[in-house]
């Protein structure tokens, strides 16, 4: 693995230069001739019957091209459980329910038209507390399921239940047991570029759909199903990505506004764009779901974990998107963070009239990690063991198979914990209870793909042009993480070209091979693996060409020299040095014999071989092109929620030093160290960027962020009231890269997109306890909560 020329280097993001010059084309800039602008009318109630909708005035407004309601489009169900329609015509079940939509020649006119739509509602009793909603006599959010069968409860028919070993027996045998509750809030992903899409049908009713999705083929499938259901069977669909202004989970599902856009385009026969305002982004886009956990853990005298029992209740909101599937990832820390033999986990998703939820960076892991990692500190204290030591005692080891069936391959958790201990000066600062304190938390996350669909694969196509450019067609997407640079480095390494030779096209279903999506921290790992394999094929093809062409070129050049200088005596050359591709190497654009790397005659610049050998001759000729579809050897979770669903797992530890102002309850983070197992950093600067960025979102999760929902309505739908940290909230973050190359990773790399977020909030909570002795188990940890807890303790 040594002697890597491009992997491991801080290659600049030159491929994305348009982002610093203002020329990048986001959905905001994506325009088509004759394009109209769509706007959506949302419900005025959390739960109500629609008595009438009158669109006549809106239709008459000059510049309006279409006004549609649920009565104007086929009544087709969409969504993960098919529990909603695109436009609601009988009942609205949440404030963001889409009731009508307008297409007009400008966004302003569309907005004005919305105000002219008259909707009469009859309010219905609404239910906002999932605990209330679970009660047998609770009013139902949905009377029937997707197929019209009556529902008897608000509890979703999603059996999130996991059990390994014997928890009850283990509890009895434990020396120490702790149990506590935690709650976590809704979190908005806060992409700086708001949601949007452009739908355009051609005269054959084939659809070109420009969208920010990070799962272009998944989106295509969902749209194909929808089109089929509304009577447009067999139409061709091309999904394209513009440059995407952040994703963080929002681009995983196909949202309702996207179907609305498609409907408006169909109705008007014009390209239609919908782009959310910031307020819509807060109020009408599904956030990370709110959750409650009860966690119980035990250990023996020596501090070895004996069991872990977790019950979770997720507020599903009125409909179902990916949020309801996050228990599949909550499973990760609950079953497999540290060695714990007996585990039970149950998650209940409950319909309410709140906003519904979807994915966000970490996908359930941050919520579960908050429960597990605060419980670890509580238990360590009860057992009288230092929390860092307690984690080391129970740490995972390479070769472990966890109760969930995860096969741990590489695992530098011990190094992560010890690094954090050292950098945060753990032993010196811990346990003072003087207003300052330190805390830590660790994580496990999928880092080698995640088999949530039947395929977790990615296809890559590479072609090399006669001018020495390497074109790559990827079925994946980029949301800003830097894939154009990282994948170029991998391909340069594998092919023997340079990163600047590589030109990658992302996000186009018409060009790329299938890809499961840029999610689950899987892109570098899975696409990288495909890229290495395709790159090696390319290299092989070029070396095969070289075997034919180097001798030709050398002989020709010798002849020329002889011609010029009749005294020239051509050397005796040993052509067996280059008579097989196996005997050749291609690196940094130079082809040379392995046995004689600096051979004065055989060492050849790759461009010469390409010009000499590519696309020449009549009849069948040579092209250098390869494609690889690679799917990691993993399993889908079975009915018991067991299975090795990722090829490898990433570990990491965050350590935090805080200062608590005991009079105001304010928490100041003096230092955050985030040490992460990345396998190998393909580009250390970019890896750090992922860790910093995720850690900052994690700090927001810990201290300041929450979507405030009052009686079903989002009341803080702007950046002044939704508190993302600013640059002034200077939090010294140190990102530490721990390298332990994973045999399955591309050049040893693991996924690192999500992990940085996961352990931050619990590390903060644990540090606050160390500083002032109060536990805040309800995120975010606001000054109010800290001060109230201090007062309750009489401090």
């Amino acid at each position: 693995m040594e002697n890597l020329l491009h992997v491991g280097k801080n290659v600049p993001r030159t491929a994305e230069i348009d982002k610093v010059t203002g020329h990048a084309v986001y959905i905001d800039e994506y325009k088509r001739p004759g394009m109209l602008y769509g706007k959506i009318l949302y419900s005025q109630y959390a739960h109500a019957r629609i008595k009438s909708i009158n669109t006549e005035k809106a239709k008459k407004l000059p510049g309006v091209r279409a006004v549609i309601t649920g009565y104007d489009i086929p009544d087709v169900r969409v969504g993960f459980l098919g529990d909603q329609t695109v436009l609601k015509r009988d009942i609205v079940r949440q404030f963001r329910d889409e009731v009508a939509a307008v297409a007009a020649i400008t966004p302003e006119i569309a907005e004005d038209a919305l105000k002219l739509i008259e909707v009469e509602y009859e309010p219905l009793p609404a239910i906002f507390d999932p605990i209330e909603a679970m009660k047998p006599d609770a009013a139902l959010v949905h009377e029937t399921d997707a197929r019209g069968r009556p529902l008897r409860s608000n509890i979703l028919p999603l059996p999130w239940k996991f059990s390994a070993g014997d928890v009850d027996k283990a509890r009895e045998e434990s020396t120490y047991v702790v149990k506590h509750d935690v709650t976590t809030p809704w979190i908005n992903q806060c992409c700086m570029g708001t949601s949007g899409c452009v739908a355009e049908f051609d005269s054959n009713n084939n659809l070109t759909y420009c969208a920010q999705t990070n799962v272009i083929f998944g989106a295509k499938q969902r749209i194909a199903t929808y089109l089929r259901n509304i009577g447009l069977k067999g139409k061709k669909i091309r999904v394209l990505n513009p440059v995407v202004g952040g994703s963080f989970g929002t681009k995983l599902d196909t949202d309702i506004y996207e179907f609305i856009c498609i409907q408006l385009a169909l109705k008007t026969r014009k390209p239609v764009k919908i782009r959310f305002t910031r307020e819509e982004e807060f109020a009408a886009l599904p956030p990370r779901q709110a959750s409650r956990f009860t966690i119980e853990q035990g250990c023996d005298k020596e501090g070895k974990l004996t069991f872990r029992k977790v019950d979770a209740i997720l507020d599903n909101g009125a409909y179902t998107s990916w949020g309801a599937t996050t228990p599949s990832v909550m499973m990760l820390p609950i079953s497999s963070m540290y060695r714990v033999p007996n585990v039970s986990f149950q998650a209940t998703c409950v319909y309410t009239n709140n906003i519904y939820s979807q994915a966000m960076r970490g996908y359930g892991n941050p919520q579960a990690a908050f429960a597990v990692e605060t419980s670890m500190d509580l238990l360590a204290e009860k057992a009288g063991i230092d929390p860092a030591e307690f984690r080391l005692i129970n740490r995972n080891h390479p070769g472990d198979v966890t109760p969930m069936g995860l096969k741990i391959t590489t695992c530098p958790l011990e190094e992560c914990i010890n690094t954090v201990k050292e950098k945060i000066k753990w032993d010196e600062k811990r346990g003072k209870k003087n207003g300052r304190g330190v805390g830590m938390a660790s994580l496990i996350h999928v880092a080698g793909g995640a088999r949530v669909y039947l395929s977790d694969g990615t296809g890559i196509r590479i072609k090399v042009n006669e001018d020495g450019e390497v074109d790559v067609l990827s079925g994946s997407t980029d949301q800003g993480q830097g894939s154009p640079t990282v994948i170029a480095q991998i391909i340069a390494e594998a092919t023997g070209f340079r990163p600047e030779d590589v030109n990658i096209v992302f996000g186009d279903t018409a060009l790329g091979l299938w890809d499961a999506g840029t999610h689950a921290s899987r892109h570098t790992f899975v696409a990288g693996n495909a890229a290495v394999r395709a790159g090696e094929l390319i290299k092989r093809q070029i070396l095969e060409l070289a075997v034919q062409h180097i001798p030709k070129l050398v002989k020709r050049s010798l002849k020329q020299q002889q011609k010029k200088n009749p005294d020239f005596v051509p050397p005796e050359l040993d052509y067996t040095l280059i008579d097989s591709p196996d005997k050749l190497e291609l690196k940094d654009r130079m082809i040379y014999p392995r046995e004689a790397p600096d051979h004065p005659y055989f060492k050849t610049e790759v461009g010469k071989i390409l010009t000499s050998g590519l696309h020449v001759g009549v009849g069948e000729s040579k092209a250098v092109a390869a494609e690889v579809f690679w799917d990691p050897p993993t399993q889908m979770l079975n009915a018991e929620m067991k299975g090795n669903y990722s090829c490898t797992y990433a570990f990491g530890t965050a350590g935090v030093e805080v200062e608590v102002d005991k009079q105001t309850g304010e928490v100041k983070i003096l230092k955050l160290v985030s040490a992460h197992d990345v396998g190998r950093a393909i580009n250390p600067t970019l890896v750090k960027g992922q860790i910093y960025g995720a850690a900052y979102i994690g700090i927001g999760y810990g201290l300041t962020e929450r979507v405030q929902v009052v009686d079903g309505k989002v009341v803080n739908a702007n950046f002044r009231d939704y508190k993302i940290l600013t640059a002034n909230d200077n939090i010294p973050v140190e990102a530490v890269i721990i390298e332990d190359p994973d045999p399955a990773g591309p050049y040893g790399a693991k996924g690192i997109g999500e992990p940085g977020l996961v352990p931050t909030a619990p590390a903060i909570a644990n540090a606050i306890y160390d500083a002032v002795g109060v536990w805040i188990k309800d995120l975010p940890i606001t000054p109010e909560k800290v001060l109230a807890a201090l007062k309750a303790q009489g401090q």
Partner: protein
Amino acid sequence: MKAYDYHKPHTVKEAIDIMGGLENAKYIAGGTDVMVLLRQGKINPANLVSLRNVAEISRIDTQNGIRIGAGVTHTQIANNEFIREHYSALADGAGVVGSKQIRNVATIGGNICNAAPSADTACPLLVLDAEAVIAGKSGERQVPVDDFIVGPSQVALEKGELVTGFVIPAFGDRTGSAYIKHARRLAMDLPILGIAVRATVKIGGAQAACRDAFKLTDVSDIVKRLEAEGLVLEDVRVAMSVVAPRPVRARKAEEAAKGKTISEKVLEELGEIAASESKPRDSFRGEAWYRRDMVKVLTKRALLKSIERMTGASSMVAPSRLW
């Protein structure tokens, strides 16, 4: 958004004249409140009369106290050395409005005339006994800021009148002031609570001894030392924001402070009294009990910070100590 016409007078007189001839018109200065309200459809004027090009209200004059034009931006105030030194609370307040970009255009006149309960320069102006200078068709008049701010978005302006500036008296070198914005973030945030204090003191012992007191790290040690030096609170102002429909003075606390030698007990009492004068409400932005509690804590801190500044012990930058 409805269409509107945009007028750009260059003098106060011109502005008043234009305004006088228009229906449904509104002044706009930096526009950081007006443009937001327009976008949200909360106001629908047919005319905007811009004060941005009126040079005479964009100046800072430092004779006999200070006169700050209504059109002076928060950036100009926060960077003004004279204000930083003599009217520190105002520099504090202007320096924490919104963000750099907001401060670059937003004006003090707009901040006060918009009259938000959370306006960051309001409490500083209240404790500095500032008066608003108002110009109208019938000439100029001067009104204490305390009377000028009436309620949320309500000020004592007659039709067509505008504020040309604020005058603040000189306080001499035994006065210090401070404003503490208690917010969840350090930028781009509305305060959960804002507290401004001005303290004019009499020092029994040596000024140098008081200055040295601030070298101590423990707050109660500092107070004891000041007490030992016989530091008397001659005249104190306290103002609080977000605890009532408009920024208000804590007059009972001010009264109680008069003539008292500083001590932990006195500080404690002042905080308690100020808190009893506050009438905060629960909102999604913050809880009432917490705001009231913070009045206690921050009144003390702002008072100590004022005294610290008076002694010249620290630079304008708030020390990392708890105030």
